[in-house]
């Protein structure tokens, strides 16, 4: 009696458990396998010859000296690659008819280079060292052309052209609007204008990009290992550009050392290395170094906003309008999603009755931009949050109150915005309680007591400030993600997915979901991701989508497998399917565990025995494949507050406290989610205070080492206090919302607000990030001059 009760307890919940990651033991022993670790017999190494000019004609490329360099096997230029490629130009990712033709980068530039770092030749040698020797010995005769560094200048009619082939530097312009801004602004009690700048930075995963390609001439097939966030797209693109069938291209993403957007693109270098392997009939490896990452991996966030807000006397938003210029860089490898996301993200969690934005996507002679963690949302959020702080300041209202008056209330959920997302669907905030998030965080950080703390600090000569900001992010983008769940005759459960692991803990999260549906523990489960041989299609890792989309596919597939196993067991045990449960590797009669069938036996049966019938009505294989398609995006939200201290003499900003609340719906693994939020916040802190990708007026990048371009380090980051609210999303069967990018989005806004607050005596208003000390001291000095000498404490 006692024992029956014990075994009949439901298996422990896997979803929601703080499971330790199945990825970790290997990585902790130094036994990960990253792309740089892939070794093959006869492996050759590539090094790219990159343009030192932001804009130039390539007159001639002299490869003779390079070919004489010991170890060099070949030097390939655009002309050589053209022999083996169907086209020299990369296909356009996220194509839209709104874009002109001929805008994508070349695999190798044939005659004109348009940014510093654009590759013109590829040297192949027996080692990385000799390949670099060879690259240094390639002599390229360039004819420099005028370059455009600033996207605002790019729009001037007198501006030089970024690429000779383009009609002008405007890639595209579009207008987003609803309501009647003209009317709203005409009748508004208050109108305030802000000019804002968000600076471009890099993604900077600590592992750069890299690829190994091995062409097997006998099989006419190519094996590829790449540090990518999109294995299937890479497979399809390489197949298309090399004129091979998809079946002949096998892509594996080994362990990936972070992505953050930088690897959600098929890069020219990847196609060049695949082509080189085919031309030479040898395996070829290219591992990006950091210097290359600085000049040739994607960047994001350079945007200039000129916006106005109309408000009533109580600080209620009547309308937002203005214009934004987005720096696209020299080419467009992947649509205009950063600009579009930014433009549609402005209204965020707020009710904005009238909106109008003109967006100019301008080309410059800098490396191209696609989403970095946050994907336009940090920019849009910065705009809105700065405007609301301005309203509060001018109307002498509490910043929290201004937000409270404008937030979409929980009672209005789901709230349909009069805006459409990239896929053309109305933006629908599906769930959440934004005000509750705000109130909780402000309570934790003791906002109510802050004025007194601030006063005391001032008396001690210290300038402290508190700032906060909201964010919402559409997550779980479609069109689908793939999952196959299979139980083999060994009893091991394999989950295969087109979703991509880049360090987030995807394997563990998916294993937890499958384990829950199959009544087992995550130790029974293997997860295969990023391998095009494991599943036929996949979309990959971007837009904080994978737990939502792949997670849902895994859940549904695992449930199907569960159902299949019970149907077979029902026939074997002659009981009803409904009386059976799957747990611990067996299908058992509920409450009668001695009546059971092991899953291994069912798996063996469903594998089929030559010449015999399968069990009836279930089909072959104890497995199921699901391509779950989201109908709508799941909107995650966050509210962050931070306390800073600013030293007016040096412009140094110290973060004293950081409290973040995130609502990502149901949490599959709270530890993993917290880790993602920590990383996201710190990325945002980088954008707020440190990461400055400097270019000179000729578009020469000048911050191309980690000594010049500063990533946040452990000593600048306070202990982060992370809280969760869990409002399950009805958009997917798990009730989850994406996580990865959400933590990044409100950070620049919250920090800017805190710095304003700390420097209120100086009238400092932050309008651009990063807030570097030099710029901040300038602002303080300007404020100083405005103040009477008696007030100046410095």
């Amino acid at each position, binding site marked *: 009696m006692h024992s029956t009760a014990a075994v009949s307890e439901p298996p422990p919940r896997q979803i929601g458990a703080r499971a330790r990651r199945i990825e970790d033991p290997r990585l902790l*022993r130094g*036994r990960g396998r990253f792309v740089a670790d892939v070794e093959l017999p006869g492996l050759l190494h590539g090094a790219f010859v990159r343009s030192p000019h932001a804009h130039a004609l390539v007159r001639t490329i002299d490869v003779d000296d390079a070919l004489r360099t010991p170890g060099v096997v070949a030097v390939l230029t655009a002309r050589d690659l053209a022999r083996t490629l169907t086209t020299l130009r990369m296909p356009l990712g996220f194509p839209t008819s709104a874009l002109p033709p001929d805008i994508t980068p070349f695999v190798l530039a044939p005659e004109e280079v348009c940014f510093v770092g654009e590759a013109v030749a590829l040297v192949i040698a027996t080692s990385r060292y000799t390949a670099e020797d060879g690259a240094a010995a390639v002599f390229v005769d360039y004819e420099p052309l005028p370059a455009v560094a600033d996207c605002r200048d790019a729009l001037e009619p007198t501006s030089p052209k970024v690429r000779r082939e383009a009609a002008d530097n405007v890639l595209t312009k579009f207008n987003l609007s609803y309501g009647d801004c003209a009317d709203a602004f005409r009748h508004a009690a208050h109108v305030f204008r802000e000019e804002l700048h968000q600076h471009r930075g890099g993604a900077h995963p600590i592992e750069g990009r890299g690829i190994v390609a091995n062409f097997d001439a006998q099989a006419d097939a190519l094996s590829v290992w790449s540090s990518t966030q999109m294995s299937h797209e890479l497979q399809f693109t390489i197949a298309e550009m090399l004129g091979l069938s998809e079946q002949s291209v096998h892509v594996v993403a080994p362990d990936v050392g972070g992505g953050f957007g930088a690897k959600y693109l098929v890069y020219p270098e990847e196609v060049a290395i695949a082509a080189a392997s085919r031309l030479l009939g040898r395996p070829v490896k290219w591992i990006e170094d950091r210097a290359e990452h600085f000049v040739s991996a994607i960047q994001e966030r350079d945007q200039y906003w000129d916006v106005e807000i109309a408000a009533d006397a109580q600080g209620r938003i009547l309308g937002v309008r203005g214009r934004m210029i987005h720096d696209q860089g020299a080419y467009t490898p992947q649509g205009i999603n950063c600009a579009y996301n930014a433009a549609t993200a402005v209204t965020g969690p707020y009710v904005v009755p009238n909106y109008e934005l003109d967006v100019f996507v301008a080309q410059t002679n800098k490396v191209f931009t696609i989403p970095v963690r946050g994907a336009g949302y940090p920019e849009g959020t910065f705009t809105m949050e700065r405007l609301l702080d301005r309203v509060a300041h001018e109307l002498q209202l509490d910043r929290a109150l201004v937000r409270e008056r404008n937030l979409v209330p929980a009672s209005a959920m789901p709230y349909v915005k009069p805006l459409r997302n990239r896929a053309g669907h109305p933006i629908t905030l599906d769930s959440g309680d934004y005000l509750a998030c705000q109130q909780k965080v402000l309570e934790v950080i003791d906002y109510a007591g802050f004025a007194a703390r601030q006063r005391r600090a001032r008396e001690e000569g210290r300038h402290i400030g508190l700032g906060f900001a909201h964010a919402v992010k559409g997550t779980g983008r479609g069109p689908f993600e793939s999952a196959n769940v299979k139980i083999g005759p060994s009893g091991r459960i394999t989950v295969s997915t087109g979703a991509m692991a880049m360090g987030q803990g995807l394997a563990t999260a998916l294993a937890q979901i499958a384990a829950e549906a199959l009544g087992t523990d995550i130790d029974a489960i293997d997860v295969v991701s990023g391998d095009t041989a494991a599943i036929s299609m996949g979309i990959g890792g971007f837009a904080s989508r994978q737990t939502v989309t792949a997670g849902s596919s895994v859940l549904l597939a695992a449930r199907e497998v569960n159902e299949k196993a019970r149907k077979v067991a029902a026939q074997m045990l002659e009981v009803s399917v409904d009386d059976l449960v799957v747990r611990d590797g067996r299908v058992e009669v509920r409450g009668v565990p001695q009546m059971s069938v092991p899953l291994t036996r069912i798996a063996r049966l469903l594998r089929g025995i030559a010449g015999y019938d399968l069990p009836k009505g279930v089909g072959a294989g104890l497995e199921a494949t699901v391509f779950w398609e989201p109908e709508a995006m799941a909107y995650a939200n966050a509210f962050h507050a931070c306390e800073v201290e600013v030293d007016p003499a040096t412009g140094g900003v110290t973060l004293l406290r950081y409290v973040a609340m995130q609502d990502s719906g149901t949490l599959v693994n709270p530890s993993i989610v917290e*880790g993602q939020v920590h990383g*996201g916040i710190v990325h945002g802190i980088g954008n707020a205070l440190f990461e400055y990708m400097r270019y000179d007026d000729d578009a020469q990048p000048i911050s191309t080492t980690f000594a010049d371009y500063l990533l946040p380090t*452990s000593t600048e980051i306070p202990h982060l206090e992370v809280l969760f609210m869990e409002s399950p999303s009805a958009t997917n069967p798990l009730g989850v919302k994406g996580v990865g990018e959400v933590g990044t989005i409100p950070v620049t806004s919250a920090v800017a607000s805190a710095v304003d607050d700390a420097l209120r005596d100086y009238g400092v208003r932050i309008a651009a990030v990063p807030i570097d000390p030099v710029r901040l001291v300038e602002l303080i000095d300007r404020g100083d001059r405005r103040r009477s000498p008696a007030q100046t404490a410095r």
Partner: protein
Amino acid sequence: MTTSSESNALSLTLDVNGKACEATVEPRTTLADCLRNELHLTGTHLGCEHGVCGACTVLVDGRTARSCLMLAAQAEGCRVTTIEGLSGEGELEPLQQAFWDRHGLQCGFCTPGVLMTLTELLRDEPNANEDAIRLALSGHLCRCTGYQNIVAAALSAVECIRRRP
């Protein structure tokens, strides 16, 4: 070390993780490349190759060193310890275990270097507090974790070592 006149190659004998290892490299070969490419110890990672990110950190005679900034030839006669030498195939060291328990890693690319630095710290300062840990970590870049769980893992390793008989 012996120099072969023809190819300018050096034959080195290195003491890595307690084993004598032979490698033939060009004089310019960094310790990191020698470990990775010649000795196939690929747990040592390269994140910047200019001495800032700390991913390549190993112990040389017990002190942390950036193996991207050091020539393989300079390591002759020294004891080199890499991530593979921490626990080998045996049970995880308390520090590694703490990283697993406290979710101290995400992509794991920075992790080997971080573990080497913390190994040195916990040896020299077995009672290291959060400030000391953050200071030691300030020579490492991690883009995934925001450092928080690295710090938490290090603190829990301190605790675990303290409680050890």
